[in-house]
């Protein structure tokens, strides 16, 4: 009996401990969820009378969070401007635009699930997708499956095309951004045009994101076409932060020009470790992850001299570009990032398409998107039959915490820092 009583008491205590633990866990998770929810914007969703809902998937946390912040600001700015002007004309009726934003945490699975939620729960009649192919392609596929118009930027054209290449192409999703060959061509043309003296040897390292198999070969081809000798070609995981082996190889190769494709955390770690290893090439080109201001802020003076592709700068001669950059800086106290212009344009393009469609019928909005042909804050955008459009490009360089155009020379361009500070 006493054993049974003891056993019963032990079970009760055990149950109490589990219950207490679960209550504490739920409290913490609830607190975490509330805090996380504070970081995402929301709308009442649905397309009720007088409004249309555009869903936004953005990477607000994780390694791509720097992009997501710009995306959110730019889209919300374009939408608020449209709403302040009375809304968009849809079939003769002025309608306010509501946005619902979900954080994909830089995870393609979450991006896909978010798009489903935005469409089926929040009533979004169109989606603006996240940046970079890892999450962008997943989100686009989800929209395609739901047969809802989808627009993204920040996803290079080739990886976007490749996803549906064997399925007859995209029906509902659109993308405008850069094409790999021009990016790579510019990367290896500018040193020759600017007459920068090097040994014409280059080392290329790309990450294993969907961009890697596209930009790696493009860089190799462009390098050789412009007279460079490719003395090293490597791939690295996109999450890698320890680069001693790679830096040793770069050093051993004797390359004056190092081209790397990766994300912001990668570049910050790589740049620091290059200095720590006593190796700085004369030209250092960081593609994709060096666009963000957070790279320059985190790397400090180590960012000086790093070159990168530039598809949008406030100094570009496009309508509203300078004003947009100034508005961002005034609003946030931070420097304008490149993706601001395209994301602002993406919101405008989507709203214009809904307006032209005269309603929320998905196919009509898709047809209106396909007919887009205009000059926006990021330059001319006209979609080809495969639902893609390529943007104009220049080469920029980080100088004292600001990204400045160095090529082509001329209006808006500054003198390049050469060689990289610390290069021998």
């Amino acid at each position, binding site marked *: 009996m006493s054993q049974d009583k003891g056993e019963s008491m032990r079970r009760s205590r055990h149950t109490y401990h*589990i219950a207490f633990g679960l209550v*504490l866990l739920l409290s913490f998770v609830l607190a975490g969820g509330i805090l996380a929810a504070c970081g995402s914007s929301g709308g009442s969703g649905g397309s009720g009378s007088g409004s249309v809902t555009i869903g936004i998937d953005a990477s607000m946390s994780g390694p791509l969070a720097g992009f997501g912040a710009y995306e959110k600001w730019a889209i919300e700015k374009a939408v608020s401007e449209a709403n302040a002007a009375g809304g968009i004309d849809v079939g003769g009726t002025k309608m306010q635009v509501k946005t619902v934003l979900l954080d994909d945490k830089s995870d393609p699975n979450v991006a896909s699930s978010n798009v489903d939620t935005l469409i089926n729960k929040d009533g979004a009649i169109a989606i603006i997708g996240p940046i970079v192919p890892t999450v962008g392609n997943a989100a686009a596929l989800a929209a395609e499956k739901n047969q809802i118009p989808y627009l993204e930027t920040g996803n290079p054209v080739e990886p976007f095309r490749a996803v549906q290449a064997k399925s007859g192409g995209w029906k509902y999703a659109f993308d405008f951004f850069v094409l790999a060959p021009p990016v790579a061509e510019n990367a290896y043309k500018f040193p020759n045009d600017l007459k920068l003296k090097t040994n014409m040897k280059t080392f290329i390292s790309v990450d294993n994101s969907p961009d890697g198999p596209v930009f790696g070969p493009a860089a190799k081809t462009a390098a050789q076409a412009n007279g460079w000798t490719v003395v090293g070609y*490597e791939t690295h995981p996109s999450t890698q932060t320890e680069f001693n082996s790679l830096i040793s190889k770069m050093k*051993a190769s004797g390359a004056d020009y190092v081209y790397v494709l990766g994300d912001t955390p990668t570049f910050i770690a790589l740049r620091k470790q290059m200095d720590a290893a006593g190796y700085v090439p004369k030209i250092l080109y960081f593609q994709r992850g060096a666009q963000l201001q957070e790279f320059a802020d985190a*790397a400090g003076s180590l960012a000086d001299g790093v070159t990168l592709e530039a598809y949008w700068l406030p100094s570009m001669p496009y309508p509203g570009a300078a004003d947009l950059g100034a508005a961002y800086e005034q609003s946030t106290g931070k420097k304008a990032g490149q993706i601001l212009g395209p994301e602002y344009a993406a919101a405008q393009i989507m709203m214009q398409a809904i307006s032209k469609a005269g309603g929320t019928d998905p196919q009509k909005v898709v047809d209106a998107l396909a007919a887009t042909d205009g000059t926006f804050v990021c330059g001319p955008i006209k979609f080809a039959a495969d639902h893609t459009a390529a943007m104009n490009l220049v080469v920029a360089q980080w100088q004292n915490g600001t990204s400045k155009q160095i090529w082509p020379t001329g209006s808006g361009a500054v003198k390049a820092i050469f060689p990289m500070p610390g290069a021998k």
Partner: protein
Amino acid sequence: MPSSTELITAILSGLGIGGLFAVAALGLSLVFGVMRLINLAHGELIVLGAYLSYSLAQWIGLDPLLSILIVAPVVALIAYPLQRYGLTPVMKGDGTAPLLITFGVSVVLQNLFILIYTPDVRSLNASYAVANFKVGGITVSVVYIITLVAGLVLLGLTHLVVTRTGFGRRLRAASEDPAAAAVMGVSVPQMYAATFAIAAGSAAVAGVLVGLTFSFGPTAGTAYLITGFAVVVLGGIGSIKGTLVGGLLLGIIESVGAAFVGDGWRVFIGCLVVLLVLSIRPQGIFGTAGGN
């Protein structure tokens, strides 16, 4: 095949990385060794240390290494009541409840980091973090000397405290037989809380080193939690000596492996070797067959 210079550089950098791994894993080892608790918030405590050091650098321009003197005690002070009043009451079960609570703490901390610091990636900058010197034809990175020395000193000190002091005796008693220790006048809840605080303080030190060597963001802690587990398991659960050796070994194996087959295989090689060692010696290098 890497050249001899590349190989030696890989070993030296591997020792440095290994020192950082050991510091990152020390707290996990202590908490599991004493309390049989897996602290799923350990990675976030590392990142918390990095963020606090970052804040001190921004506010008063304090050097990151010097900031350890403030950051480590602050994080320890935050951890003490969490363990004493949040975890101790639920320690007497099968371990599920405390595990869930530490997971919850991890979620809250990640979101707090995002709210306070934004999702932007950060870095701790100092001239010595990117300095180097030459020994013969080999370039030695100063930051790896720092992380190696930090690992040796911190783990050495912890080992001495645990094996040679009265506090250490009480700690070992509470770990080996809590009931008997309580009868002998040892306050087991206090010992647990003190252990957790020390573990959190060492995590904060690891955070500063991570910030100097790499970069960090709100979700960076998970990777260090996983690496910490690998080090603890490789070295032997609950063995501080094992944690040091495990960390150094893992660092060297990954670096040398990367020198041969590329940085892309670094983590894979590290995991493979850990599995290999465990298949031969399941208790880890310095673990005892019945556990510590």
